[in-house]
């Protein structure tokens, strides 16, 4: 049985390294042009080359998003860019605009073409069409149910990638230009200003305002398919995709840690037992409620938010391990959020599920004991009985 791919986002090279470390089989990234996340740092050509080499050394893959819908002038330089990506050996380019397929086939013929979720491909006939054009994978629209995915796998030979976690549009992907009209930012070229999370007044057909203490917004809650991991694998889905190129290192590491562990458990034990504790971990690091959306039923009132932005913040992420002195059992860490002596915390890492411990001592850079860690990025030392490694994460006990 071919093991399902776990695919993670990365908005910059540091995040990509975290994603590879925390168990991603492949990472999708954007260059500084042609990508829908126009307002994150993204990757320079040199950085793309570097991360491809790093990933390939670990037998992992890099996919580059070129998923804007091009206006005429956006094609300037695209052939040269694609040629470079081909030279670097990127594994696939993710496209939404049909014209990009031919350009990639011509200028980087060894690179696979994946059809972006922006096309909202939800049925086997549209997927057969892309197959004929030479694409090797389709990222399904997030409106596809379990039954739709099943039919697609039965009736096509295409690789299928399914979003399993993260934010999702209220609209069909690509079929929303609210940003264009409200903020003059082109959503299909990476300028989405998330108008669906604005709060509106709602008026009925007679122009009477609907009176309620609840605003009218139509923001979707996030997606989580952790509960259906075994079904996704058994359906024959080829790749499980996590959303969020603009998310933090902590988010990427935490989400990957949960999914990697559970996917491995499925293959090792031929079984997957859903643990609500894992769902809670995912919830805590994204700060937005996540539900299965269209996978198990048609979404109704409980699958969306009505009061605009609903993010809550927490300070769960406490520190990152820099090194570990095995002899003295001391971890050197860099602080991210406040913690103090006697706090109950958890350390986890790519090779460690989690280990709970109590902060017994905090030593600052002047080698003095302190009661609390309250300076972001401060380098500290703490006693830790279990062996840890660089880039393990310490968080609050949840």
């Amino acid at each position, binding site marked *: 049985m071919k093991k399902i791919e776990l695919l993670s986002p990365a908005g910059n090279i540091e995040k990509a390294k975290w994603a590879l470390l925390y168990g991603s089989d492949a990472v999708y990234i954007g260059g500084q042009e042609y990508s829908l996340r*126009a*307002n994150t740092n993204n990757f320079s050509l040199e950085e793309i080359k570097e991360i491809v080499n790093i990933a390939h050394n670990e037998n992992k893959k890099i996919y580059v998003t070129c998923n804007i*819908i*091009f*206006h*005429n002038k*956006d094609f300037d330089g695209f052939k040269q860019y694609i040629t470079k990506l081909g030279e670097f050996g990127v594994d696939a380019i993710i496209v939404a*605009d049909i*014209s990009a*397929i031919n350009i990639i086939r011509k200028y980087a013929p060894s690179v696979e073409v994946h059809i972006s979720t922006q096309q*909202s*491909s*939800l*049925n*086997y006939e*549209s997927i*057969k*069409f*892309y197959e004929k054009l030479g694409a090797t994978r389709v990222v399904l629209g997030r*409106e*596809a*149910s379990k*039954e739709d995915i099943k*039919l*697609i796998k039965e009736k096509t030979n295409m690789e299928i990638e399914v979003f399993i976690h993260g934010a999702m549009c*209220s*609209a*069909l992907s*690509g*079929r*929303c*230009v*609210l940003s*264009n*009209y409200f903020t*003059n*930012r*082109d959503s*299909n070229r*990476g*300028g989405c200003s998330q108008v*669906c999370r604005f*709060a*509106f*007044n*709602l*008026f*009925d*057909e007679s*122009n009477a305002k609907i009176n*309620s203490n*609840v605003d*009218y917004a*139509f923001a979707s809650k996030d997606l989580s398919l952790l509960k259906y991991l075994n079904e996704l694998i058994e359906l024959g889905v080829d790749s499980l995709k996590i959303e969020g190129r603009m998310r933090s290192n902590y988010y990427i590491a935490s989400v990957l840690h949960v999914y990697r562990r559970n996917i491995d458990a499925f293959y090792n034990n031929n079984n997957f037992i859903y643990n609500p504790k894992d769902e809670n971990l995912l919830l805590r690091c994204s700060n937005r409620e996540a539900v299965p959306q*269209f996978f198990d039923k048609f*979404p*109704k*009132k409980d699958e*969306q938010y*009505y009061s605009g932005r609903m993010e809550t913040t927490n300070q769960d992420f406490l520190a990152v391990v820099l090194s570990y002195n095995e002899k003295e059992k001391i971890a050197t860490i860099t602080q991210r959020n406040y913690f103090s002596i006697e706090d109950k915390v958890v350390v986890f890492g790519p090779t460690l599920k989690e280990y709970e411990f109590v902060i017994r001592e905090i030593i600052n850079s002047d080698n003095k004991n302190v009661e609390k860690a309250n300076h972001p990025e401060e380098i500290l030392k703490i006693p830790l009985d279990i062996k840890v490694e660089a880039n393990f994460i310490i968080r609050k006990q949840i």
Partner: protein
Amino acid sequence: MEYVITINDKKINNKWFEKCDNFLIGLKGYSLYMTNTYEKEEFEEIVKLLHLKEKKVFVKIDKLFLSHEIVELEKTLNFLSNLKIDYVIFDDMAILNLNEKYNLNLIWGSNHFVVNHKSCNVYYELGVLKSLISPEITLDEILEINTKYKGDLIVPIFGYNHMFSSKRKLLTSYYDHIGKKINNKFHTINEDRNDKMYKIYENENGTHILADFCLYDFESFKKLKTNVKYGYLDFSFFEDEEALKIFESFKKEEKLTDKRFKDGFFNTETIFKVKRK
């Protein structure tokens, strides 16, 4: 320029037959944004009437289909083929893939995607000889596409542009959430910070939102008129008599003034990078 217009009533006013040769009809369950759509039986009657009058009939099938809806889609394509419908505007590639069986004259009209000439030409090479422009680009961009495109362009020149389409029932869900019953599924929304009103409505395909203005720009129209093959006028939300007057002014090239009208993106370019690298 030839004109393609929508109809607001299945009993088509005879005056339209004198004025226009191309009619766009909505098919219930398949046409996402059209406010007037017709069940197959009524649709068939309208098409037959228009053909009798030697008019061309366009239908917009811009729904995106789920796998389990493909069987029904095939029946519908067969229905359209038997009706000898003149043109089918499509969004979902399933229609293009299935068309080998049905041999319909297709027009590429993926909502918000028809914004460059290269993609139009890719579809042209695949046998799709016309494209319906997405109105989120400038007049200059449209004219450039027109120059470089091998096929015929249809350009929206009048009507409320659509901005958003979701499969979700976003009005019903809200009413359920606040414990009220929804009676009519045509609503409007606005923000506190301005008085712009946006039409939002639900139908069998989900929830759709339209622009706060009716697209109209006389200067752009004059340039398009001498360059592009078709102008598309969507008269949804206009009474028939008013629509007839408006259409007459287009034909006579007389400028209209109305506070509902705005030039959309004809003269405004969108941005997408707000941070400097």
